[in-house]
């Protein structure tokens, strides 16, 4: 997008495009998180109501009450800003924003469609996991700085839980990563193009099991029932956010719903093909080949598809929350260490074995748009190619080829000598994002 803005505004190779692109991406993602929270809170109340044999909100905004969250948000904004006397004021005020920042930062690497990602981080999976683990900081700070024992209890319990569940979550996430051969989320998504047989979740029985463990661990790491002790209302009043009211409290919830959407989206990309639907409708209609607009529409449909999948994941989390009782903290940790970790390890070994022994899988049928994409790694040149448009370049297939190709890389291309490694155009490179990159390639 940076190049596109530059070209349209007639500023070639300027940093303005990158900055503008960055700002636009940031705002869009902020809207995803904020509006997403609005929709999810409404959805939660409706789903909870229906499960409990009653209607949810039905007044604000028509028969289905879909503006209810907006009304609640307005109410929260107008509330008095109370800080408890015993609180550490600075940390108390900062904590919700830390939580929200961590949740939001992880969205920067989450692709919504082919190339539609704020920052195409090449080790995106790792980045998302790392940033998700930061959310616990906000919780700890909130619990500690509230100056109340109850909040402290909730904070410690939550921190222990999130930190413990990072282990099986990491193990589960590694399975699709090595199936794909890359940590780049866009590439992982593209490798599952075509019919649903290409989806990693159907690749082999172990990956199928891995998805369910992933979902359990993801539910635990965003603190949803049955792992929601931190918010255990009936036990600790409201846990670590007891002392928060008004807008600060709503930030915690935006962070929570944002994280729910994020891990569901991550699961959708890793296991369920991301923006590639069960049927490659857009390819059947021939849209991606029919010029710029067609390409854009295909990507848009993919984006909607992806968001639908993530919303389904969030809905399942809500469904589970309103059905099951809550586990005690020691039972939560036991589940993690005695059940999730061994199961994840077994699934990991099984999936590795499946790959190594080259056992058959539905993706071998290559149903859909041609063979699955090979991994393209950027080696030497800073061209416009991001991994997103890697369909055109086939990367090296084996390590020997890597070695041979790397030998051929010396000396570097002559035209690259004009571009210093760092310096004036250093920073724009780290903001590559080419949502419409395909039409820019020669």
């Amino acid at each position, binding site marked *: 997008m940076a190049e596109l803005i530059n070209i349209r505004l007639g*500023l070639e*190779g*300027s*940093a*303005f495009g*990158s*900055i503008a692109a960055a700002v636009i991406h940031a705002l869009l993602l902020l809207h995803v998180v904020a509006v997403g929270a609005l929709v999810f809170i409404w959805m939660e109340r409706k789903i909870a109501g229906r499960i409990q044999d009653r209607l949810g909100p039905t007044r604000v905004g028509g028969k289905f009450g879909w503006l209810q969250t907006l009304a609640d948000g307005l109410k929260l904004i107008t509330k008095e800003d109370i800080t408890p006397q015993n609180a*550490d004021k*600075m*940390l108390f005020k*900062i904590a919700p924003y830390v939580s929200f920042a961590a949740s939001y930062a992880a969205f920067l690497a989450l692709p919504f469609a082919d190339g539609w990602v704020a920052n195409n*981080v*090449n*080790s995106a999976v*790792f*980045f998302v*996991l*790392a*940033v998700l*683990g*930061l959310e*616990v*900081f906000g919780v*700890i*700070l909130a619990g*500690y*700085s509230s*100056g109340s024992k109850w909040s*402290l209890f909730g904070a*410690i319990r939550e*921190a*222990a839980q999130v*930190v413990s569940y990072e282990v099986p979550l990491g193990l589960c996430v590694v399975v699709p990563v090595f199936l794909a051969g890359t*940590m780049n989320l866009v590439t992982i998504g593209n490798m599952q193009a075509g019919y649903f047989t290409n989806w990693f979740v159907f690749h082999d029985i172990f990956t199928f099991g891995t998805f369910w463990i992933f979902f359990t661990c993801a539910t635990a790491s965003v603190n949803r029932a049955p792992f929601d002790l931190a918010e255990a209302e009936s036990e600790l009043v409201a846990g670590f956010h007891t002392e928060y009211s008004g807008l600060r409290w709503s930030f915690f919830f935006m962070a929570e719903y944002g994280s729910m959407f994020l891990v569901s989206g991550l699961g959708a990309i890793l296991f369920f093909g991301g923006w590639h639907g069960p049927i490659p409708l857009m390819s059947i209609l021939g849209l991606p080949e029919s010029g710029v607009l067609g390409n854009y529409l295909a990507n848009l449909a993919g984006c909607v598809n992806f968001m639908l999948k993530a919303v389904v994941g969030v809905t399942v989390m809500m469904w589970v929350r309103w059905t099951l009782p809550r586990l005690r903290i020691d039972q939560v940790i036991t589940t993690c260490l005695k059940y999730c970790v061994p199961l994840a390890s077994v699934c990991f070994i099984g999936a590795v074995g499946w790959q190594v022994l080259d056992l058959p899988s539905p993706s071998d049928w290559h149903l859909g748009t041609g063979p699955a994409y090979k991994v393209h*790694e*950027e*080696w*030497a040149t*800073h061209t416009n190619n991001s991994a997103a448009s890697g369909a055109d370049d086939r990367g090296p297939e084996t*390590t020997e080829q*890597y*070695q041979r190709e*790397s*030998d051929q*890389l*010396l000396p*570097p*291309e002559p035209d*690259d000598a004009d571009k*210093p*490694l*760092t*310096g*004036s*155009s*250093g*920073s*724009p*490179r*780290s903001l590559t994002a080419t949502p419409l990159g395909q039409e820019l390639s020669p």
Partner: protein
Amino acid sequence: MTSALLANISSDLFFIVFAGIACVFAVAVLLTSNIVRMAFYLVISLGATAGLFFLAGAEFVGAMQLMIYVGGTLVLLIFGVMLTAQSRFVNMRTHPRDWIMAIIVGGSLLMLLLTAAFRVPSWHEEQQVIAAASELEVADSKTATRLGLALSGVRVDKINADEQLKQGMSGYLLPFVIVSIHLLVVLIGAAYMARSKRMVRRTSEQAEDTTSS
């Protein structure tokens, strides 16, 4: 002209912002006396360092910094503080004598590092930077592929090295596994030593004595 200026400013701006945050909050760690605030400032400082890594294009290392330092080490620190704190907000008072000692030691280290850094010729001459850059291999540091290959033995980071020198080179996998097992042993040992001990309480008074000892 303006676009080039803007480009210069923008790239330097982010560097200045991140480096500034890292330094300012590192100093704040020194100056505050509340332990949890200290940990929080350290979080921000290390996060800014991760930002510097991202700015340089080393995304894998940046994510690693976030996960290990911020997500791991600091959470551990805060746990330790919160679980063993005797009073509500723990304050650390540093004796002025300790301050002087610290300034001497830290200051001399800083001087040493600065001198060593500025001695590298290619780091302080504009011409040299461009020339050096064109000699260096232009490798894409954004991927972790080179790291992964080097780990498993394909030392693509030493492509330009002397043939003779390359003879003995191997991957980092073995040292990596050794360190991991070492850490695992240390963790298990620590968990074992810190385990809760069962003891028989004969009378409640004796229990008070033993628990307070």
